C-alpha cells in the first residue's frame, strides 16, 4: 500500500537511487586521502569498496558517473565517542554495569544518525555513559540510515567496554529518576580505583572457576556447571585482550592511576576518552600504548574539566600518542571537521594531521583501520563530498556514501522538505478534526 511506504520513502530510506552493486565513478574531485596525500582525480567504487583512485580512472561500461565539479572528497568522518542511536545510555544504579550493552538498545531510526550523515560522519563508537567505574559494552556503527539494528553495526569491529573515572562514577547513582536517591559506593576517586580492582579480582576468580570446571569435566568428573556471570564475562575478555577498554577520564592523576591498575592486572587501556589533562602525562600514555580521544576546546563544565587547553590534541600527537577528536554530543557530531580545523590553529598541525584526528586515527583506535578511515584501494567506500575544503567553516556536506551506497544528498534533502511538510500538515488537520469529533458535546469527557 502506498501509505505504508511513506515513512520508508521519506524518513528512513537512504537516497535509494544508488543501491549497492553497480560501479560508481566520482570524477573531477579534489581527493583528500588523508594517508596518501591529496590529488585531483577520480575514485572508482566497486562492490561497495574503493577499487581505484587516481588522476585518470577509466569509468567501466555501465558505471554511474558522478561529477564532483571540482569539490572535495574525503573519507567518512569517524566519531570515537557518541551516544546517538541508542535508547539507553547509562545503567546508573550500580558501579559496575558491565552486564549491560548498547547493542540491546540500538535504535537505527534515531534521527541523530541522519543528522550525523549530514555532518559527514559515517562511523561512530556508541558508548555506554560514564555513570559507573566500569560501564557497559559499546558498539561501533555505520550510519546506514534505513537499515535495521544488526545491519548498522560495523561487523568485525572489536568489542569494547566503557570505564569512567572521577566525578561521574563517584556521584550518587540513579539521578535520572529525578528523585533524591540513595548513596552509592564509591564516593571518592580512591573508591573508583577500588571498584575497578575488585571487579577484576572477581573476574580472575570467575575465570579460575570456569577453568577448574572445564578441567574437571574433561577428566570425566561429575560437576555441576557453574553459573554464567554476565557481569564478569566482559571483564574476563578484557583480561584476555579480547575486549577494548574506553575510559572516560579528565585529570592527570586519575589517568596515571588507571594505567597502573591496568598494568598490574595485565590488560591495556585502548582509549582514554576526554582526557583533557592528557597533555600533562602524554609520555605515560604513550608508554602504555593507549590512544587518546579528546575535545578540541570544550571544557570547564565541571571542576575536573578546568585545566584544559586547546593544544591538548596537538601536544599529545606530537608526543606520539594516537589522538582523535570526538563529539560526545549529537550536535557537535555534525561539525567534527571544524573541530579538527581548530588543531591547525592551536598546535599547528598540518591539514592531513588535522583530518587524521577524525578519520584514520579513530579508525586505528577502534581497530577498524583496515576497513575505513582513509581513501585507499580496498577500503570501504565511505566517502563525503564537501563543496569547500572540509577544514573551512564554510564547507557543507553535499553527498555521503557508505559502502558505496549514497545515504545523504543535500539537494534531495532540501527538496524533500516541502513534501514532508505538506504531508505533516495534512495529517495534522485530519487528526485534529477527528479529535474534535470524538469530543462529546458539552465538553466534558465521560470518565
Amino acid at each position, binding site marked *: 500500500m502506498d*501509505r*505504508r511506504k511513506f515513512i520508508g520513502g521519506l524518513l528512513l530510506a537512504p537516497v535509494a537511487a544508488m543501491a549497492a552493486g553497480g560501479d560508481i565513478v566520482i570524477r573531477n574531485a579534489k581527493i583528500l586521502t588523508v594517508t596518501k596525500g591529496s590529488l585531483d582525480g577520480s575514485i572508482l567504487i566497486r562492490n561497495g569498496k574503493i577499487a581505484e583512485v587516481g588522476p585518470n580512472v577509466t569509468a567501466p561500461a555501465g558505471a554511474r558517473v558522478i561529477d564532483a565539479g571540482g569539490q572535495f572528497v574525503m573519507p567518512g568522518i569517524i566519531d570515537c565517542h557518541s551516544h546517538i542511536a541508542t535508547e539507553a545510555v547509562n545503567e546508573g*544504579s550500580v558501579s559496575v554495569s558491565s*552486564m*549491560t550493552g548498547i547493542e540491546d538498545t540500538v535504535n537505527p531510526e534515531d534521527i541523530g544518525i541522519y543528522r550525523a550523515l549530514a555532518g559527514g560522519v559515517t562511523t561512530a563508537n556508541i558508548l555506554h555513559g560514564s555513570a559507573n567505574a566500569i560501564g557497559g559494552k559499546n558498539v561501533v556503527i555505520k550510519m546506514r540510515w534505513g537499515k535495521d539494528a544488526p545491519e548498522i553495526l560495523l561487523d568485525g569491529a572489536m568489542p569494547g567496554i566503557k570505564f569512567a573515572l572521577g566525578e561521574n562514577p563517584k556521584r550518587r547513582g540513579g539521578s535520572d529518576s529525578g528523585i533524591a536517591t*540513595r548513596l552509592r559506593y564509591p564516593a571518592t576517586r580512591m573508591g573508583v580505583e577500588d571498584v575497578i580492582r575488585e571487579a577484576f579480582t572477581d573476574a580472575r576468580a570467575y575465570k579460575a572457576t570456569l577453568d577448574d570446571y572445564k578441567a574437571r569435566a574433561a577428566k570425566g568428573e561429575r560437576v555441576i556447571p557453574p553459573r554464567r556471570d554476565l557481569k564478569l564475562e566482559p571483564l574476563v575478555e578484557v583480561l584476555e585482550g579480547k575486549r577494548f577498554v574506553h575510559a572516560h577520564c579528565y585529570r592527570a592523576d586519575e589517568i596515571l592511576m588507571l594505567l597502573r591498575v591496568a598494568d598490574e592486572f595485565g590488560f591495556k587501556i585502548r582509549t582514554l576518552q576526554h582526557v583533557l589533562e592528557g597533555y600533562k602525562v602524554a609520555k605515560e600514555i604513550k608508554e602504555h600504548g593507549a590512544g587518546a580521544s579528546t575535545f578540541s576546546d570544550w571544557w570547564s563544565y565541571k571542576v575536573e574539566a578546568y585545566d584544559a587547553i586547546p593544544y591538548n590534541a596537538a601536544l599529545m600527537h606530537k608526543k606520539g600518542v594516537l589522538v582523535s577528536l570526538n563529539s560526545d554530543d549529537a550536535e557537535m557530531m555534525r561539525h567534527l571537521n571544524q573541530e579538527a580545523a581548530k588543531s591547525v590553529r592551536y598546535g599547528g598541525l598540518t591539514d592531513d594531521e588535522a583530518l587524521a584526528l577524525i578519520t584514520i586515527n579513530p579508525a586505528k583506535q577502534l581497530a577498524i583501520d583496515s576497513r575505513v578511515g582513509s581513501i585507499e584501494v580496498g577500503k570501504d567506500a565511505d566517502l563525503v563530498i564537501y563543496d569547500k575544503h572540509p577544514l573551512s567553516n564554510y564547507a557543507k556536506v553535499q553527498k555521503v556514501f557508505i559502502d558505496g551506497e549514497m545515504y545523504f544528498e543535500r539537494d534531495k534533502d532540501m527538496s524533500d522538505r516541502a513534501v514532508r511538510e505538506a504531508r505533516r500538515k495534512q495529517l495534522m488537520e*485530519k487528526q485534529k478534526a477527528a479529535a474534535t469529533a*470524538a469530543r462529546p458535546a458539552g465538553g466534558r469527557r465521560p470518565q
Partner: protein
Amino acid sequence: MCGWTGRRVGKNCPPCYHKSQMKRRHLLLAAAGAFAYGQSGSPGLYAIQNATIHTAAGPAIANGTIVVRNGLIEAVGANVAVPAGAWAIDGKGMHVYPGLIDSLSRWGLPAPVDGPPRIVVAAPTGGGGRRGGGDEGPSNVQFQDDGGPEERPSNTSWVKAADLVQPNDASLAAARNAGFTTAVVFPATGIFAGQGSVLNLSGGKAGDMVVSSPVGQFLSMAAVRNGLASFPGSLMGSFAYIRQIYLDAEQYKTAKAMYAQNARGLQRPAYDRALEGVLESPRALLPAGRKVEIDRMIRFGKELKTPVILYGGTEAWRAADSLKAAGVPLLMNLRWPERDRDGDPDVMDSLRTLETREMAPAGPAVLAKAGVKFAFYSGGLERPADVRRAVKKAVDAGLAKEDALRALTISAAQIYGVDDRLGSLEPGKIGNLFVTDGDWLAEKTQVKMVFVDGKKFEPTAGGQTNGPA
C-alpha cells in the same frame, strides 16, 4: 414463569434444574444479593436455531443451528436436529459468534496483590557499605517481597493469575456483557510480572474459570523506579537482567536434574522460586510497539531460547515482514495511538508521530495479508463500546471482518495453544459463544446472550449480567 429464560420455547423444562435450582437461587439472592451458581446440578442443553452462525472455522452458516450440551458444543450446522430435552432458542435474525477472547488482560485481578514491589529503606550502613557483587542494588535498599536465595528485583515470576483472580470482579461481568467469554489474564507489574492463565468469564469458583494455566511469563522492560533507583535502572539494564535470569534458569535446570539423578557428591542446588517461575512458563511475552522494538524482541526471543509472544504492535504495519520471517505471533493493543483530546491544540506533532497515529489501525490488515498470526487485546479499554469501535477502526483500515473476528477468537486460542478447546464454534469445543441481534461490529447491535462453559448469561441494561439462566 420459569426463572431461566423468558424466551424458552419447545421442549420440557428439565425438572431437576428447575426446582432445586430455583430454590437455591432465591436463597442466594436473599443472602448475598448477587447471582452465583456453581456448576453443580444438571448440565444445560441448549439449541439455537435459525441463526447466522459465524464459526471462525469456515464460512458463516445461514439459518444454522448450534447445540451446546454439558458445557461443550455438540453440533453446529445448517441441518442439525434439536435434541430432545434441549432449551431451544429461536435465533431468527440473530448472529452467533464464538466467545471473544481478550488475549492480554488484567480483568479480575486485584490491584494490590501484584502491585509494585515494596521497598524498605534501612539505615545507611556508613562508609563503603555495599554488597559483595555490587549489581544487586544498593546497600540500604531491600526488596521486602523478594525472598529467593538470590536477590531478584522486580520479579514475581512464580505468581499465577489463576491463583489471584477474583471471580466476582465487576470487570468480568462487564466484559461478558460485550461478548467476551475468555480472558488471558496476566499479572502485569514488574519485569518478571508472573504467569498468565486462560480464564473463562463464568463467575462461580475461581478454579472453574481456569481453562489453561500457566500459559506464559509476562515480561516488561520497566526499569525499577520507585523513587529509589535500583538495578535495573535502564532499558539496557532490563535486557541484561532478563538475559541473566534465563541463563540462571537454564543452569538451575541442569543442576537440579543432575542432583535428582544422583545426589551423592554434589553440592545441593539452592531452591529459587524466581527461576522455578521462569522454568514453568511455556512462553514469554515481550513488549514491542515500534518496529525497532519488534525487531529487537524477535532477536531477544531467539536468544532466550524460549517461545515468545510480542505485545503492543503500534507499528505492526511496518513490521509484517519481520514477524512473518520469524514466525512470532503478535498481540495487538486495541488502544490505538490518538491525538490527546484535551491536549494543546497548537502542539506541532512530528511527522513520525502523525504517521504512527494514521497507520496504526492499518496494522492488522497488513499482518493478515502477510499471514502473520496476531490477536487483539483490550489494552485498558474498559467500555465494550470502545473495544468494538477500536476493532471497527481496524476494519475500516482494511481488515476483513472475518479476520477481525479471528483476532479476538481462534487466533488468540492458537497463540496460547488452546485452540483444541477454544476459539471457534466446532463440535467438542467449549461452549463459549455470544448471540447478537445484528453484525457485532455495527454501532447499534446488542448482545442478547452470552454462553460461557455452556452456561447462559443475558446482559441487562444496568450492565450486570443475569445468569446463569
